[in-house]
């Protein structure tokens, strides 16, 4: 019996009926990872500890949570005690954290088994997983095509059915866009819903952890465990966490969905546009109705983001200096030389580019024009959302303007070309809002994602709307043909 492509709910049933043990499940998952090694989803495997943890679940012989005995993969940006954590960077290629990130710890405390750490864009900076020190990750749907990024390894591993779900982080679309490109479901929660403790920071005011899974229902299962206040992260929300599974089946009658006027969808690939129109019809059939809303400043999202995120990252990445952990260059003359060589050899080009941009945006004489200006525009964007949510429940956009593309085909000449891939996803990070991407068909045999953006703390509405959509469609059931791998 294969466990490949099975959802958490399906695996749960198998475990509960004892048709498989947690140990067998973990072994099969690890074997699948080995079998599809060429996808390059994983940076580090967790065979020994994974097997041990699965075994103790079997010995305990009682199910305490939905995730008990379920194998998961963790993005290699979450610190895991005793297990190498690299952020897909040379500078951390030998880093063994002495502690575990809260989000991962909560999932493990719920009985899930971490089978490995997934490949990603270096320090989560990228939209195609092409900036990893450990090489490109393939899209399971087409060899030589990007899985999206930055959580590309997590998306690829779930899409290939190696694990039913994985963790990711989303700073400007890094969960949703790879989920869309790999044909799976990915949720970025409200900023502050999931603790950032132990998540290696890219841009502190934008970063948020969330689940990637085969279904919205499975996302709800993970979110139930990952969420909640953490005293170690004083920006984590102190509000109560609802049971995200409880209301997932509510009918959608009367749901008001907003379409953002400023996003001119006719500029998109007609096929991408056609899928979007189809999904609108599906939702209409399910009882929802559509309202055009205006978010006048939303088109400023990309430049706003590319001022704020690099600024925060330039500071966040200063701790990688070769002194207390991480890569240190050899043969250095003095401390400054040690800093410069360790960092220059340890970081890849995209990371350097963003650190330099951020340094520039914060430097004397430019702070007001770039950084502060962007934070002011950010408020305008948030105000636009606040206004829109007075008349609608959720907003709907494509997740990405395109499907997955060939390795090396974008951004090589002009990095901004790749930044524009994030057009639809970035604004919810700026405003701290939850957003989900669900598969809604294919264009040229590559998956396309549909994004729903919710109001502050309304992940429940997003999961409900996504689950009902998946109950009435089968896009999420499509499986890639993995013959080439």
């Amino acid at each position, binding site marked *: 019996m294969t466990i490949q492509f099975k959802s958490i709910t399906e695996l749960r049933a198998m475990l509960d009926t004892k048709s498989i043990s947690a140990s067998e499940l973990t072994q099969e998952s690890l074997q699948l990872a080995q079998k599809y090694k060429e996808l390059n989803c994983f940076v580090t495997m967790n065979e020994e500890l994974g097997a041990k943890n699965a075994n103790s679940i079997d010995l305990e012989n009682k199910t305490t949570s939905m995730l008990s005995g379920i194998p998961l993969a963790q993005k290699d940006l979450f610190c895991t005690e005793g297990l190498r954590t690299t952020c897909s960077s040379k500078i951390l290629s030998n880093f063994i954290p002495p502690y575990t990130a809260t989000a991962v710890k909560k999932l493990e405390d719920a009985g899930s088994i971490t089978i490995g750490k997934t490949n990603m864009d270096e320090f989560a900076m990228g939209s195609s997983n092409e900036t990893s020190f450990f090489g490109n990750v393939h899209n399971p749907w087409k060899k030589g095509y990007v899985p999206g990024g930055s959580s590309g390894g997590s998306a690829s591993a779930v899409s290939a059915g190696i694990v039913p779900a994985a963790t990711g982080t989303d700073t400007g679309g890094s969960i949703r866009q790879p989920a869309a490109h790999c044909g799976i479901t990915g949720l970025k929660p409200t*900023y502050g819903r999931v603790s950032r403790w132990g998540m290696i920071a890219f841009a502190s005011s934008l970063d948020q952890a969330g689940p990637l899974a085969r279904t919205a229902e499975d996302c709800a299962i993970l979110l139930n465990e990952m969420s909640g206040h953490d005293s170690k992260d004083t920006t984590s929300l102190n509000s109560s966490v609802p049971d995200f599974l409880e209301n997932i089946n509510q009918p959608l009658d009367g749901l008001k969905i907003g379409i953002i006027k400023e996003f001119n969808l006719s500029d998109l690939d007609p096929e991408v546009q056609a899928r979007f129109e189809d999904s609108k019809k599906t939702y209409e059939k399910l009882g929802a109705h559509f309202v055009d809303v205006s978010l006048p400043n939303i088109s400023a999202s990309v430049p706003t983001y590319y001022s704020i995120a690099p600024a925060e990252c330039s500071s966040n990445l200063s701790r990688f200096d070769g002194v207390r952990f991480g890569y240190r260059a050899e043969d250095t003359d003095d401390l400054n030389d040690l800093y410069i060589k360790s960092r220059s050899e340890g970081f890849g080009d995209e990371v*350097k580019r963003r650190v330099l941009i951020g340094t520039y945006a914060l430097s004397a004489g430019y702070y007001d024009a770039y950084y502060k200006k962007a934070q002011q525009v950010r408020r305008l964007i948030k105000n636009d959302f606040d206004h829109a949510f007075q008349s609608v429940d959720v907003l709907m956009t494509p997740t990405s303007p395109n499907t997955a593309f060939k390795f090396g085909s974008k951004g090589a000449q002009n990095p901004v070309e790749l930044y524009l891939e994030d057009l639809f996803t970035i604004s919810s990070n*700026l405003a701290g809002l939850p957003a989900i991407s669900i598969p809604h068909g294919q264009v040229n045999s590559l998956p396309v994602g549909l994004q729903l953006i919710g109001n502050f703390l309304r992940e429940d509405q997003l999961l409900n709307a996504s689950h009902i959509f998946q109950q009435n469609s089968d896009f999420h059931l499509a499986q890639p043909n993995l013959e080439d791998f």
Partner: protein
Amino acid sequence: MDQETVSTICYLARLEIDKNKSKKIIQDLETIIELIGSLQTIDTSSIDPLYSPLEMTALTHEDIENSDNKKEKFLENAALSNEDYFLVPRVVE
């Protein structure tokens, strides 16, 4: 972006640019700066910056010790250390 600005920025960030790539990187930086410079057209007078999506106040910790010292592990992770200290090339103040 003139060469001097690029050198200053590189020094502040403690990064050096590969000579072969420097032209391209500077060009990329200029493109990105042009992108973020487009914000100048937006009127933000009297708009307060939004530094965090959470407009709340900080939670604080009590002044009670809760040490989580892992000295050996900390020093182990360093590229160079002895039994007590992290070591770096000697600094002359």
